[in-house]
């Protein structure tokens, strides 16, 4: 039962991804063609709110539900892995119109062909695990 709260937040995530239309291939095309403010508005609002909230959490040393102070983990320092990995991700995002979250939301929406996208995303993740030590990070 301790997991039920994550189920509820996940449900809200699925609903907001659907209702914001961020799950749509068309919206991702609009974004990459710079022809609509919609996706920039969504991500921009989330980030600006996120920056302010994160700063407040750090400043006030706000604690989580268990009473521990909320931790932020800095990402490993590198340029190459983020630039190349990010670019590979972007190629797939613009092709399939979905990042990993929206893939499963689309499944729930009823687009069962996203099962293929998801299956190959798992395969891609597996391939990364296999090649991890052979590619620059």
């Amino acid at each position: 039962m301790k997991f039920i709260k994550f189920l509820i937040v996940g449900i809200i995530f699925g609903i907001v991804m659907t209702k914001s239309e961020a799950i749509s291939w068309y919206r991702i095309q609009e974004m990459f063609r710079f022809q609509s403010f919609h996706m920039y508005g969504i991500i921009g609002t989330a980030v600006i709110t996120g920056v302010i909230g994160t700063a407040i959490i750090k400043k006030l040393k706000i604690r989580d539900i268990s009473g521990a102070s909320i931790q932020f983990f800095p990402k490993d320092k590198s340029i190459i892995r983020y630039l190349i990995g990010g670019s590979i991700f972007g190629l797939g995002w613009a092709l399939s119109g979905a990042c990993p979250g929206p893939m499963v939301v689309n499944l729930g929406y009823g687009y069962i062909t996203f099962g293929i996208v998801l299956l190959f995303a798992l395969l891609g993740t597996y391939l990364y695990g296999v090649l991890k030590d052979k590619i620059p990070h």
Partner: protein
Amino acid sequence: MIEFLTQPWSWWFSGLIIAAIMFTMLFFGKSFGFSSNLRTICSIAGAGKKVKFFDFDWKTQIWNLVFLVGAIIGGFLAKEFLSTDEPIKIAASTLKDLSELGFEKPTEVQPLELFSLENAFSLKGFLVLAIGGLLVGFGSRYAGGCTSGHAISGLSNLQIPSLIAVVGFFIGGLIMTFFILPLIFK
């Protein structure tokens, strides 16, 4: 209220909810990052026996898988109870560009040219979905995160690596949109 919920949600309302989801996860002692689930599922499937990257205690990640299940349910609920089933309205300029690539006017949320069962059973249609998924799966792990982990959580924490990753998302996205899609669909 119901009318407000069944219409497409505005960008600012959606953005606020996404930020609220991130803060709720932090309050629950976790971080908001979706693509880690792909690694976890590989591990559950037994990939850890062969590849060290997947050899970890996946039971510590159950909370995120539960979030994933919730996301599927959320998509279903939004479709069944909060949807008007009207075709998605997108920018006229995008419609025009896409029509030049052979896409008809939208009739629903997704283009049937890509996501109908019929299309998925054609060789080209299948390859587009498969390669798209493969690139997202590989790229998100290589970059150490996807849109939620980098663009939302990472940028909120002013992480330079996340900014570089987001620049990468756009390099790849623009190359696909302007150079590769015309080769595939024209």
